[in-house]
């Protein structure tokens, strides 16, 4: 059974800090790793990392995939209060047609 573990479970920082969120995985048939951001409502998609795309960047957010060590990190620089959210990591299993989610990291950015 696929397993996705995120750490830390929660994190409190101040505006301007840089944070690194971790996601490790144990899966039978790696296809893609996805990051989502969830504020008060629906999770929204951030990045998808695959064997052919192991590094992604969008503004202050970036993510890398280490297929050898079986983990991914999500980096946020110069954090803002609007970055406060739950960040979810998920592995998509092609054979099963479904995703396995980690428990999420709750990030709180204080002014």
């Amino acid at each position, binding site marked *: 059974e696929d397993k996705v573990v995120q750490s830390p*479970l929660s994190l409190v920082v101040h505006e301007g800090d840089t944070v690194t969120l971790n996601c490790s995985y144990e899966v039978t048939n790696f*296809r*893609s790793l*996805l990051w*989502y951001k969830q504020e008060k*409502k*629906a*999770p*929204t*998609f951030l990045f*998808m990392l*695959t064997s052919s795309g192991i590094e992604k960047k969008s503004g202050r957010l970036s993510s890398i995939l280490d297929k050898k060590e079986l983990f991914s990190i999500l980096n946020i620089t110069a954090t803002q209060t609007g970055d406060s959210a739950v960040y*979810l990591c*998920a592995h*998509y299993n*092609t054979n099963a*047609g*479904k*995703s*396995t*989610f*980690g*428990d*999420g990291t709750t990030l709180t950015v204080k002014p």
Partner: protein
Amino acid sequence: DVKVTQSSRYLVKRTGEKVFLECVQDMDHENMFWYRQDPGLGLRLIYFSYDVKMKEKGDIPEGYSVSREKKERFSLILESASTNQTSMYLCASRGQGGQPQHFGDGTRLSIL
């Protein structure tokens, strides 16, 4: 933009009632999913469907059933609601292959 619409944001029901949660997507996606989200437990998959009238059990299907009569609509049914089914329920849809899922805003269900 893909839109996934869940029929209710908040719902309060009584133990033993039959509860229907509705989800509609407007992007002609083949795949639809129902999750529940509880503090400290992340998103857990209840059921999913990869085509009309097709359904697959997820990780925690007990006490739930689903219906997919039309491609755009996926319903979650609590046959006889119990207090341990109080939770946030999220619906999602996804196109073919490994595309990202698109989520609805969730239904916060309370069973009294």
